[in-house]
């Protein structure tokens, strides 16, 4: 549904995005993750046809990004979605539906449906008098009035309370289940982790990691085993060098030794070494790193 090839964007002498390539399948929720200034929003805007790439191509729904035919099949939710606050939700949505040439009868039915699903009341109240959460829902509704195949959501839950955030995340998942392709960026990696099928991590304009959440976990950090043991006879302890396997981390805490290894062979090696000096393994804990930890690690590596 989306094919991006060697996308690059320069502003004067500054390169905002460099050599981005990825493809997104129909019905997929695709995340773009990165710190501020990593190039996420620039990438999304190039996909939406708002920004002209310096080089490379982006094809969305079979059309070059920015082509009118493509824009008819796109729903775009920018990070900031200031509304025309003197309008009511209904007049606002009807205007955009009309602009997308949606027949008025269809638009009316669709708008009612979307507003119902988003649990939006006060449809005749001026947008300027609505809460931030309601305004965000209106902005999402606007992105859906043309029944798009592709949705680009830039920080859809930015600045919203947890309840509204969950609502919007669930709604985004529902849209994906209905067959819509969603490109999604967020600072809150928990949000990305909770709804994205695949993602790319961007740093300083380039993609530094890509794949499913599990792919990235296994490639950058993966699962770790934290083995805790008692000292051996006469307080003998086994250091990381005494273990016949790689030890990622080693520490002594409250008279106990703690070993971090990356696989079960490492766990066995620790147990063998500890028991050899008369000690005993008291606890084995399996830990999976969060996307945030991976992101920080990857971003640090990229920056270094």
């Amino acid at each position, binding site marked *: 549904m989306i094919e991006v090839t060697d996308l690059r964007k320069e502003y004067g002498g500054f390169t905002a995005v460099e050599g981005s390539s990825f493809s997104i399948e129909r019905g997929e929720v695709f995340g773009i993750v990165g710190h501020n200034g990593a190039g996420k929003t620039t990438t999304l805007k190039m996909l939406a046809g708002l920004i002209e790439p310096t080089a490379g191509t982006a094809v969305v729904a079979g059309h070059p990004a920015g082509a009118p035919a493509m824009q008819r099949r796109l729903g775009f939710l920018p990070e900031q979605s200031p509304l025309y606050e003197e309008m009511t939700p209904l007049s606002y949505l009807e205007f955009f539906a009309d602009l*997308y040439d949606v027949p008025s009868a269809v638009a009316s039915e669709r708008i009612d449906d979307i507003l119902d699903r988003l649990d939006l009341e006060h449809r005749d109240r001026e947008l300027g008098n609505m809460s931030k959460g309601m305004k965000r829902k209106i902005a999402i509704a606007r992105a859906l009035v043309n029944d798009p195949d592709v949705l680009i959501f830039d920080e859809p839950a930015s600045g919203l309370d947890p309840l509204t955030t969950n609502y919007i995340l669930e709604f985004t998942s529902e849209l994906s289940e209905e067959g819509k392709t969603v490109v999604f960026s967020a600072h809150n990696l928990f949000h990305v982790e909770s709804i994205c099928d695949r993602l790319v991590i961007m740093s300083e304009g380039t993609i530094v990691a890509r794949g499913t959440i599990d792919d990235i976990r296994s490639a950058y950090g993966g699962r770790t085993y934290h083995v805790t043991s008692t000292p051996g006879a006469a307080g003998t302890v086994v250091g990381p060098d005494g273990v016949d396997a790689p030890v990622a981390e080693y520490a002594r805490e409250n008279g106990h030794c703690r070993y971090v290894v990356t696989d079960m062979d490492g766990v066995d090696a620790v147990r063998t070494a500890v028991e050899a000096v008369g000690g005993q393994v008291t606890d084995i804990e399996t830990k999976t790193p969060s996307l945030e930890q991976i992101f920080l690690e990857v971003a640090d590596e990229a920056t270094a």
Partner: protein
Amino acid sequence: MSGVSSEGMNDRGSLGRIWRIARWEVTRSAGTVDRKTIAVVLVLLLAAGFVGYSAVDDGVGLEDGLYTVAVDEESPYYEVATADRTFRTVDPGEPADLIIYANGHVNPAETAKGNAAHAAFSDAVERHNEALMIAESDTAAAFPVSVTLVYEQREPLEAVGDGDLEADDGDDGTEADGDSLATDGSSDDGTGSETADDDASAIATPEFGGGSIDDSSGPQTPGSITPPFPFQSLVLAFLFVVPMNFVIQAYGSTIMDERINRRGELLLVSPASRYEIVAGKTLPYLLGVTGLVCAIALVIDGGWLSVAAVIPIALLFLAATFVGAMFARSFKELTFVTVTISVFLTTYTFVPAIFTDVTPIALISPLTLVVLDLQGESVRAVEYLFSTAPFYLGSAVLFGLGLGSYREEDMFTQKPVPSKVIDSIATHVRGKASVFAMPIVFIPFVFAIQLLTVSLVFALPETLSLPIIFLVAAGVEEVAKSVHVYAGYAHSRFDSSVKTALGIGAISGLGFFVGEKFTHVVQLVGLPDIVEGQAAFGPTLAGDSLLVLAAIALAPLVLHVVTAMIGALGASRGRRSYLVALVLATAVHATYNLGVIVLVL
């Protein structure tokens, strides 16, 4: 194009989207102003219009009934006192500023006001007597000596012969024939000067470049002769410009609104192109102004010429405001921009129109056409073209310039205005063809600035006005030839080698040369007949040998190419070098202009 899209939605096409955005703009804008404010503004506008129209129609009226005159109805002075609104008559015996006895003796009250009333009444009697003389059927008896008065241009140029537009009679002096008061006027050549207005204050227009003072209102006494100043028509013409100053405030705000908090981003990502968005947002204001213009024309008896002359002014007001709103960084800055536009364009249109009956320079303002229309004079197509083409073309260029910035990458950024101008120009610079075309696009501005300079300095002594015109004319042309080249270099559109810079400069110079030929329309309206016009646009070539004509025709090409190369070379080396090169190119150009004028004259 319209039809059904692949998604089954009806594609109404470009016009449909423009119309939809225009309708939305009307309803949305209406929502931003509360009804009380609209009502107050309407009342104020109506009041201003009424007062203005009344002032023109009947005078201001502040002096109405200022002095009381005690006079008997049987007195011959009674008619004078009642005819002049300055006086209010009271019955004899009542307290008054002026008492007129039956024997004709006039006794003013022993106050300052009484003395003033006396003086005013003496003037009124004199005017009354003059009116009686003018009404006399035997004019030779009433005025034994008659003088035909012809207005002349200041310091006429010897080299200038009878211009194409000079009056047929060719009279350029004062003639006293003693027997005929009727002059041939200007109706002979079809332009006509038959004033529809019988008001004595409306003096008929002499022909451009000669002509006579009056052909329809009969003789006048020396005291009533005033220089040709179309006060009434001018004030009425000014009424057209007034509403534009209000409309651009609203228009500038709505454009600025799209840029604040990235509001316009959502329209940009819709199927509507930026051209459709801007057209849709502009249309209601243009239609609104057009409606107002038509209404004003109806009220003041203006014809279609007035409407056709004012529309390009309205377009330029809107276009300049659009660009200003696209470049301004805040509403505060926008206010400054719109006020500047109001002052500049009002001055540009109004001041030249004052000289409607004096000099062809007046035709640089379309408001002059309105004045002529209101005076009942017709206007040739070439004069309409001369007056309005810079406005139409200037509007198109300004809209194009603003549209260059109407995209996500530019419209939401906060940059200084000069940087935005350069960015906006740079969006149109793509390849050699655009380098050739851009100077042509800038020609209306070059033309307008040169015309404005001529109109501003033509009243100054030539020793002062000519150097100013030489420098301004050269400077503005050099900017037009090089600013897009500089913008291109600032956005890395060209490599900075000397060879490329010279090539780009040559193309730009050639483009300007082609565009400059369009300015020769000035010769059709007689502007080169004045010294300042020659300084800005070059002398009339008629009468020169073929060789001289060929040299004069080709020399500007060499000049423009060379100076554009200087500018391009500077532009390729950065901003400071560009400014230095611009000064150098201007100096070369001004020297050339001076040389040509000296050679030809």
